[in-house]
């Protein structure tokens, strides 16, 4: 079945350093859609980014990601981490309209 694999566990960064959270996926469908959600403490997941066409970069709130079908990846990046970026990040895969499959989540902790 469809699956999503993310950077495991906790990623700890110093403020100002670049962020990269890995996301790879597996599916038999040729036209997947990938999403990044962010969940802050005591909140529900909120959409951060969504993929467009193959090899096209998408950006929002300083974060960016590019869907690469050749490597089945949709890594999340940011040039400079901020304290407010500390949260749980989920990568999600959608191959049909009725189901979104989430990765296990990566917790990002940004320290001063």
């Amino acid at each position: 079945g469809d699956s999503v694999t993310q950077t495991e566990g906790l990623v700890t960064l110093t403020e100002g350093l670049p962020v990269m959270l890995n996301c790879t996926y597996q599916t038999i469908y040729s036209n997947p859609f990938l999403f990044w959600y962010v969940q802050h403490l005591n909140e529900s997941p909120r959409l951060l980014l969504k993929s467009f066409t193959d090899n096209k970069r998408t950006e929002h709130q300083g974060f960016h990601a590019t869907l690469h079908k050749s490597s089945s990846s949709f890594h999340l990046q940011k040039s400079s981490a901020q304290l407010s970026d500390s949260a749980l990040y989920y990568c999600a895969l959608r191959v049909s309209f009725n189901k979104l499959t989430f990765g296990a989540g990566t917790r990002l902790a940004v320290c001063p």
Partner: protein
Amino acid sequence: ETAVFQTPNYHVTQVGNEVSFNCKQTLGHDTMYWYKQDSKKLLKIMFSYNNKQLIVNETVPRRFSPQSSDKAHLNLRIKSVEPEDSAVYLCASSLGQGNQAPLFGEGTRLSVL
């Protein structure tokens, strides 16, 4: 205000009781979902409905049953709760197109004593 609304926010109950959670969306979406987020923060889909019809029914215990009166409402009933049902239940909605991202409600936190 347009959003996904869930009630209650919290519910504490005892093993064996029946509970019901409500979800309403005012976004005009045609697809609604129930997800379970466990203590390890794993997000698993339970059910999804499109225009009131059940589309996805993942492997969940039979004591869970979704109920949809129209495309704006999707409720969840748990007939006889078990300790492992303690979790956050998240309702979401979206348009039924591949690149449309589901929008989540605030969630219902269930504690089973």
